[in-house]
C-alpha cells in the first residue's frame, strides 16, 4: 500500500492535470512524490510584474499531516522574490507553512497563498534579519522555527539547532 503521502499526492497531481493550475502557477516538475517544482508569477498590478519565481515543494511520508517544505529556488540563475517574508536563500516565513499548516491544505492552495502574498507586497525588501538568518539557516526551512508576528511583520527566526545548543 502506498504511503499516505504518495496516495494523496497522486490525487492532487491528478487534479492538477485534469483541472490545470490557477493562473500564474505552473507545475514544471513532479517526477516523484518527494519533490515538486512550480513556477509562480503574480498576475496583474504588482511589484513583481514580469518576474517569475520557482517554488519547490518537498514532501515527507507523513504529508499531509506534516507540512511540506516549501521554498523558492535560488540556484541555476533563479532568484527568490525580494519580499519582507522571503529570505534571500529562498526560505519563506509564512505561518501556513509552519504552525498553521493544515492537512486540508493542498499544494495548489499553498501556491495560491504565496502568490497572493507576493501580490499584496507593498515594498520590495528583504526581512530585517535576512543576513543573520541566511548565514545560519538550516538547509530545510522546516527546521527553522519562524516567529510569526502578525502585525509588525518582523520575523525573528530561530534556527532550532541554535536553540538546542543554548539549552544544553
Amino acid at each position, binding site marked *: *500500500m502506498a504511503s*499516505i503521502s504518495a*496516495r494523496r499526492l497522486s490525487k492532487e497531481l491528478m487534479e492538477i492535470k485534469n483541472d490545470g493550475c490557477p493562473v500564474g502557477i505552473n507545475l514544471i516538475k513532479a517526477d516523484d512524490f518527494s519533490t515538486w517544482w512550480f513556477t509562480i508569477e503574480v498576475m496583474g498590478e504588482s511589484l513583481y510584474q514580469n518576474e517569475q519565481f520557482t517554488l519547490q515543494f518537498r514532501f515527507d*511520508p*507523513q504529508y499531509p*499531516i506534516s507540512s511540506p517544505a516549501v521554498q523558492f529556488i535560488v540556484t541555476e540563475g533563479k532568484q527568490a522574490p525580494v519580499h519582507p517574508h522571503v529570505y534571500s536563500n529562498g526560505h519563506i516565513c509564512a505561518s501556513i507553512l509552519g504552525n498553521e499548516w493544515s*492537512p486540508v491544505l493542498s499544494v495548489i492552495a499553498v501556491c495560491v497563498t504565496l502568490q497572493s502574498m507576493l501580490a499584496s507586497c507593498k515594498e520590495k525588501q528583504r526581512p530585517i534579519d535576512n543576513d543573520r538568518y541566511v548565514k545560519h539557516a538550516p538547509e530545510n526551512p522546516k527546521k527553522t*522555527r519562524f516567529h510569526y508576528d502578525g502585525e509588525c511583520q518582523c520575523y525573528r527566526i530561530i534556527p532550532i539547532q541554535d*536553540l538546542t545548543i543554548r*539549552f544544553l
Partner: protein
Amino acid sequence: MGNSSSSSSRSHDETVDFGFLTPQGVYTGPRDWNQTVVTQLICARRLAPFYRPLEDYDDSWTDDQILAARKELPDAEGQEPRLEQPPLASSVSSKASHSKRPNTLKEPSKPEAAVYRGAAECPICFLYYPPNINHSRCCDQAICTECFVQIKRSEPTTTHLVSDPAACPYCVQENFGVVYTPPPWRAGIGSEGSPSSRSDSPKHSSQSDNPPTHKRRQKSFSADSPEVVTTDQIRPDWEAKLAAVRAAVTRRANRRIIMRQVGDRLIPVGVTSGRVHALSPEEAATVADNGNGGTWRSRRRRDGGGAGGAGGLEQYLGQDLEELMMMEAMRLSLIEHEAQQKREAEEKQKAEEQVKNVDTASEPIASDSGSGPVGASTSSASIESPSTPSTSHQKNDSLRVKKGSIFSRSRSPSPVPPVSKQSSVPPFSTLGAALTSTNSTASAILRSSYSNSDSNSASIPIPENYSETSQAPLLPKDEATNPAASSILSLPSSSSSTTPSITIAPVATSPIPQTTSPDSLPTLITMASVSPISPLTDADASELYESLPSSPEENTSEPLIPRAGKVKMENTGTNDKVRDGNRAGEFSTADPEHVEEA
C-alpha cells in the same frame, strides 16, 4: 470476500459495523495514540471504526466493484471484513439497500459492501469511507478515523515549552474534536445486546432513511460535550509528556559542569544533575578554554523553576543518548590529557616512591600530589593503595569546604594545597558513577581517568551537591595501576562499611548516584541503598538535586554529614592511615571512625 458464507469463519468480535478496531494502513507512522481508548470509543460507537477505505467510489458501482476497490492491508493483519453472523447475511440478501442504485437491488447484496453506499471522501487522505464517518465538532466537516488519530497537539520541545491543543484542520478552532453518528443497525461487537442488531443490516438502514447522507447540523458541539471525542482523549498522556519535557529543561538548567583544573585549564569531566548529561564537544572545548568558571556557570544557570515532581517522567526522554554523549565527551576530555598526565605522573612517581619509602604513613602520599602511587594502586576496591591516603586527605578538606560554598571549592583547588590528589578524586568518583551506570566500559575509562587524576593534582570544582556526595570517595582503589582508580574505589569501601567486600565496581558506590533522581539510574540506586548513605531516600536525593542550583544553603549536605554512613566515609577517606591494604576488611568490620583511628 465477505459474503455470508465466509463471514461465519471470522469471529464477529473483531469488527464493529463492518469496520475494524485498528488502522487499516493508510498511515504508516508510529501509532502514538492510546489504542485502548480508541478501541473503547469505537466499540461504544462514539468514533467511527477503521473502515478499509476505497481508493475511489462511484454510486453506480456494484457490490463487487466496491469490494474490489477496498484497500488491501499491507500486512497479514488485515482481513476481510466479515459478517458477524449468518442470519445477518441472509437478511441482507433480501435486497433493499442502495437507494441510489435501484439496479443493485436485484443483486444479492453484501453488507460489507453495502455499508459503503453513499461513501464520503475524507478531505485529508482523499479516500472514501462509509457515510457514517466522523464529523468535526466545530464545523461539521468529515474526517475519517485514520486521519483523526493522526491529529494531535504540537509536541513540546525544549525550545517550545507549550503544547498547543490541536486545532481543527478545517476551521482552525482549537481543541479539535469529532462527533460520530453511528448507523441505526449494529454488527460485530456490541451487536448481541441490542435487540435490533440481528435483524438490522446496512441495507435496512439504507432503506429506512435513504441514502445515508450526512445531514448538516446547525449547531456545533463544544469540546467538552459528551458526544465529542477530542484529540486529547485519545492521547491522554500529553500532559505527562509536556511535564517531562519541562522537567528535562529544568534539569538541564540546573546542571553544573564538573571541572577539573589542569594547570591553568579547566577540563570538564562530568555534569551534575539527577541525570548525567552530555557536553557537546564544542561546548566542552569552550568550557575547557575558558579559565573563568563564572561565565559558564552563569550561562547555565537558567532556572526552569519547579522541577520538583517531574522526575518520574524522565523516562520519556532520551536519557540514554544523553548519557552516552556525555560519556564520550568525558572520555575524549580525559584522553586528551592523559599523555600529559602520565608524563607528570612518572616524574612525580619517583619522588613519591621516595617519600613512601621514608614514611609508610599517609604523609608521604599526601605530600606527593597525585603522582605518587601510580604503580601502587590495588586492583580490588577493598584494598587500599598508597595513593588512597592522599585522596582521603583531600576529602576531608573537601568536606569542610563543601559546607561553605561549593563554588569556592570548585574554583580553588582543595583546601589542602599539599595534597593535590584529593581534589581530583571527588570529580572522578562522580564521573565513575555516571560512567558505570551508563556504560559497562566505564570502569575502564574511570581507571584511566583516575590514574590521571591522581597524577595531576588539579583542583576540581565540585558542584554544590557534589560536596555532599563527593567526600566519601577517596578510598583505596584497585591495582589497576592507576592511582586514581583507588580514590574512586575508596568511596565504595567506606560506604560499604556494612558490606564486607568492596569488590563492587567502585563507580557504583560513588556518591553521584544518590544525587541522581530515583528513576535515572537503577544500578546506582541500588548501590546507594547498600552504602551507608542509604539513609538518604530517593526523594531526598532528588530534593537535593533540585535545590542544588539555586540555593546552596539548602543543601542537604549538612544533614548528610551527621548521618553516620556518610560522615564516616568522608572521614575514612581523609585518613591516610587507612590507605593500605586491607581497607576493605577494616571497613567491613569496623566503622569509619575505627578506621581512622587505626
